[in-house]
Every structure is written in structure tokens, then in C-alpha cells.
């Protein structure tokens, strides 16, 4: 309750008033994240060999690989289940799944959280 504390607080307040704020106006601007931030896992369909290693290791069963046709497969990453552990990225030998620094994933509908991509099985040479 000493007066010097109030003086210090007042000085800090005035300095803050003319300096750049620490926060941003959220929906319009976002805080930048670092390069190796573990955000949503994103598949690179061209590299994937459908070995299903990631599907087996995923602790939350977020990855599902379904066969559609002879060569056509559906690769589903359910962000509603994913816990961003990074296991899938670590286990993939073909560098085909990456955790990117995208973190705005909110949706109104649970189904929309499923990121679906189509992968074609490559013929054996």
C-alpha cells in the first residue's frame, strides 16, 4: 500500500500505453508459431505407400485407411480424435505425413474434422 508502488505501477502503465501490445486481436490476427510446431497432421498422398504403419501406431485410432477400389484407397485423419502426439510422423518411412503448424481446427460439425484424402496404390515393379 505504499505510495512508491503506485508510482511504479503508474509509470509502467504509461510506458505500456505507448508500446506495442503483447496480445493480438484474435480472429483477425494470430500469434505466429514456430516451424516445428506440432499442429494438424497432413498427408502427402504422392509419397504414401499404404503400408498402414501409421494406422497401427496411432494411439487414438485417428487414422483410418479404407479400401475403395482396386487401387483407390481412402486415407482419413480424424482431427477430433488426434492428440497431436507426432507418432505417425515418426513412424512413416516415406516422409509422407507431417505435423504442420496449423492449429485453428474448430468446426461446428464433428464430421468436418475428418480430413479425407485419396491414395492410389502403386503397382509393384
Amino acid at each position, binding site marked *: 500500500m505504499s505510495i512508491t508502488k*503506485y508510482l511504479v*505501477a*503508474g509509470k*509502467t*502503465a*504509461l510506458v*505500456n*500505453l505507448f*508500446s506495442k*501490445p*503483447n*496480445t*493480438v*486481436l484474435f480472429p483477425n490476427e494470430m500469434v505466429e508459431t514456430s516451424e516445428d510446431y506440432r499442429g494438424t497432421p497432413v498427408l502427402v498422398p504422392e509419397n504414401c505407400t499404404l503400408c498402414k504403419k501409421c494406422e497401427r501406431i496411432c494411439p487414438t485410432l485417428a487414422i483410418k485407411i479404407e479400401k475403395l477400389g482396386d487401387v483407390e484407397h481412402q486415407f482419413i485423419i480424424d482431427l477430433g480424435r488426434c492428440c497431436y502426439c507426432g507418432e505417425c510422423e515418426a513412424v512413416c518411412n516415406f516422409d509422407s505425413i507431417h505435423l504442420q503448424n496449423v492449429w485453428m481446427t474448430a468446426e461446428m460439425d464433428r464430421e468436418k474434422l475428418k480430413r479425407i484424402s485419396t491414395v492410389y496404390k502403386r503397382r509393384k515393379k
Partner: protein
Amino acid sequence: MMILRILEFFIFPGALFAIVLSVILMWLVRKLAARMENRVGPPFLQPLYDFAKLLAKERVYPEKSMRLVLWLIPILQFSVALTMSLFLPIISPEGLISFDGDLFFFLFLLGIHGSSAFFLGWMSNNPYGGSGSGRAVLIELSFEIPLSLSLAGIANVARSMRISEITLYMAGVFFTFGSFGKILLIIPWSLLLIISLISTLGALEYNPFSAGHAETEIVAGWMTELTGPDLALVKMSEFLNLTNLSVLIAALFLGGPPVYEIGLYTRFVTFLVFLVKTLLVVFALAFIKTISSRLRVDQSTEGMWKYLLPLALGGVILILLIQQYGGA
């Protein structure tokens, strides 16, 4: 002529203008506080969005609460705050309503506004509401007297109890530092200004006197059970009160809108000067609000009764002495 008068009451500088000004001032207070705390703060007109959102929400009443009171008191608070805004000198030293002794009628309305919070919390049948309203009324009781005393001191300087006459006198006093006594008056003037600023913080339930709605402890205090339009009206009357008190202090202590005769632009310049003075007061309020932290209710009442009240009394007595012997 009649229509013009009605327009004055309802649009400018009456009700509508008061509401617009309050929303802007409220935004300013929040923005300034945020910037001083190193945050970005709300976007422009955020208080208006809040108000509109609350208006569209449903009313929910707790069981065994007195619905009539919960429904009526927000309306009472809003109308009292709106009535108070009609007394304010905005484009001329004379408010829309002006009569001898209107200063104390204004304070009376402020008292009604403050004490009605007690019934809101009490009737809402909620422990948070109950303790919040008790605290609010304690703080109300303690700031009211220093505030009235400091305004009485200023009324004494101008030897009038009419807001317009005090405003005119204070606007002129800066140019007529004639006698030694008048210069001496600066001491009690600044003392009373600080006291009334601090009491205003109490009236608006800002830090450090925000024990009445200490969020971390008693949720929203006496506002806990208010919902939808009721809460919107209470919030709007809070915004209006910010305008009322800051404009009143700007008028009584800084001279409010003076009358400079510059032909066509007289009214415009008057209005501009009024705005600058009001903004100064609002800045001071936001500044004190930011740098202080919330006091316990016993600390704030103790501070007000032990220090603020004697200081205010001392200020008034000093003014009387200077007037008697200093020839002011």
C-alpha cells in the same frame, strides 16, 4: 419550436447522444485500461455489441426470486441514469434540465441508482448476489459523502448550487486569477478533484472499489442472477453513469463547455472543448482503475471513512477559510 425542444431531449444533446457517448466512453475506458495492461483491448463499439447481444438473450429467473423486482429495477436504473444525463452541460453550460439546486438532485438520483443495486442482489435469492449487494451498498454509503462534500466545496467556490452557474463560474475562473485568494483556491480545488475522481471509481464499481462484483470470489456480485435484457439495461446504465459522472466532474472542476463568442462556430468549439475536458477525466479514471488493485470491502470502506471523508471536509473548510479571509 416545440418539436425542436423534443428533438433536443430525445436526440442531441439528450438521450440518444448520451447513450452513444457512453458507449464510446466505455470503449475508451476499456481500451485505455487494456493498453496500459499491455493488451490490445476490445475493438471499437464492442460495448454496443455486448449490449445488443444481451438484448437478444432469453430471461432466466432463479427459483423463489422476486421476479417483479428483478424485472423492474434494471428499468429503474436505466431511466434514472438517463434522467441524470439530461442535467449534463454538453453544448452549453446549461443542461437540458436546469434549476436551482439541481446539483443535489443529481446526487440524489445517483444515490437511488446505487442503492437499487442492493435490492437486485437481495431479491435474486443467491448467496453471491446477497453478499455482492451488501458490499455494493457499503461502498455506496462510503463514497457518497466524500463525493457530495467535494461537490459542495466547489458549489461554495461558485456560491451556487446550480450546475450551469458553477460551470460558467469555473470556466471563467481560469482567466481571472485576480486576487491572491483565488490562486490559493487551487490547493483545495485539486484536493477535491482527486477526491471526487476516487469517489467516482466507487460509484462505478471500478478498481480499487470493485469488491461488489469481485469476479474471482462472488462471480458477478449483485448482477449474478441477471440475464438477457435485464443485464443489458443494468450494463447500459453503468455506461451512462460513466458519462454522467465524468461529464459532471469535467463541468464542475474544469469548467465544462465554456462560451467563446466566435460567431458561427461557437457551438462547435464549445462542444469540442467539452469533449476534450471529458476525455481528460475519463483518462484519469482509466489510469487510476488500471494501476490500483481491488481492495477488500472493509479496506475500501475504511479508506473512504478514515481518509477520504476528513480530507474532503478539510477541503471544504479550507475553501470557506480562504473565502472568508483570503478575499476570493
